[in-house]
């Protein structure tokens, strides 16, 4: 296997970094998107609908290519033209990639959180208001945990997809994530079976560990439910 062991280790690390960063950004976009779709203002609802419809309709690869070759260039060009940055400025490709991936995941998170909020019995919000709880306490202690309980399995799926979609990043930059490392190694040694199996094993490992953690979170989130 030569010196590929350390490359694989670094690849797993990069895959995890991309996944975690894009997922966190996706959660932020999801909260914003769900708030927009549930807002009393029509313009915001429209914006939220456009976001989820467009992002979920287009292939992720296409969105990633647009982010890289159209948006990032346009934004940095605009920033340079108004003197905000130097003319040879370019965004950090890692940053562009995780924001773009996060933006995509955010559309799915938006729908999940929206469904979670709509599933809340109205009485929960009534009781929290009647007790005089402030907005942060209402959402942080009363409504949020119940939304999460409803949303957690679906959010877990988004996470598992995030780990797999992280490999798309190597299309738009010189990133040595697990998949890239394995295909380079396979091409160099012609040992396709070994290295692709190794890549598969890495993803399997990530997902098995993820599922164990998700399961624990899920059990924790169901406190007070159906215990008899």
């Amino acid at each position, binding site marked *: 296997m030569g010196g590929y062991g350390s490359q694989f280790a670094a690849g797993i690390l990069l895959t995890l970094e991309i996944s975690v960063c894009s997922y966190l950004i996706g959660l932020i976009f999801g909260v914003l998107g769900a708030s927009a779709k549930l807002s009393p203002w029509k313009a915001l609802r429209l914006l939220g609908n456009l976001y989820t419809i467009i992002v979920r309709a287009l292939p992720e690869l296409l969105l990633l290519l647009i982010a890289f070759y159209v948006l990032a260039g346009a934004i940095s060009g605009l920033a340079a033209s108004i003197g905000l940055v130097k003319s040879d400025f370019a965004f950090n490709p890692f940053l562009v990639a995780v924001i773009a991936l996060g933006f995509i995941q955010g559309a799915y998170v938006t729908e999940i959180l929206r469904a979670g909020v709509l599933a809340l019995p109205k009485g929960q919000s*009534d*009781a929290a208001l*009647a*007790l*005089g*709880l402030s907005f942060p306490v209402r959402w942080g202690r009363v409504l949020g945990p119940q939304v999460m309980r409803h949303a957690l399995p679906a959010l877990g799926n988004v996470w598992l997809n995030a780990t797999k979609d992280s490999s798309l990043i190597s299309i738009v930059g010189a990133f040595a994530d697990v998949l890239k490392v394995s295909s380079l190694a396979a091409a160099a040694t012609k040992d396709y079976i070994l290295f692709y199996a190794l890549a598969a094993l890495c993803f399997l490992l990530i997902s098995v560990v993820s599922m164990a953690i998700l399961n624990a979170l899920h059990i924790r989130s169901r406190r*007070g439910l159906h215990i*008899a």
Partner: protein
Amino acid sequence: MAAPPAVIMDGVNTSFGTNHVLRNVSLNVGQGERVVICGPSGSGKSTMIRCINGLERYQCGRITVDGIALTRDAASLKRIRRDVGMVFQSFNLFPHLTVLQNCVLAPMSVKGMKRAEAEALAMEFLGRVKIPEQAGKYPSQLSGGQQQRVAIARALCMQPRIMLFDEPTSALDPEMVREVLDTMVELAGSGMTMLCVTHEMGFARQVADRVIFMDGGEIVEEGAPDSLFAAPKTERLQRFLAQILRSH
């Protein structure tokens, strides 16, 4: 200076779209007064008492609670909700929190009470509603009657001056109605101002200073329970009472 009336509603009107739900409702509730509100389904009883703590908006008229004018600004709502506790038909306990956590959440976060102090207070009120031994359980582990008593204790933990009840016993199995009514009778004995939507006429007779009959979004008739039930003046109330008697 005498304390201001607990609740003043003056010409309150509420609509949901084209549905005019409250029509010129005016009502004065004195400190310590116990008012029972009854009326057919859809007559606006819930809407009326939900206006008092700002859970429902009203379009015109004036509401004053404990001398505080209820306006759209957040400060008046916050002060009023500190003074007003509410108990709902469907209990609305927070299912992911234990009984004790349900009770201490508002005192700690709204009043800034220390945990030890809030827990001591909660145990005192759980004792008063006779379920201190359930403090560590989750709502789903309790019977309906027990859950409603916890909901009463949770509201009392904010030490409100006024308590609103919206059909607190109508979601309960018949054998549990009594324990909740007993708790409310006891609360009435402590001098709490109470507004209670209920069709429990026995309860109304026992504790109410005044019964209000609503129909079609209006207060149609009001008076002391005995005279109101014995000699209803309007045909609408006569019909309503006949219906209640038949179903009980």
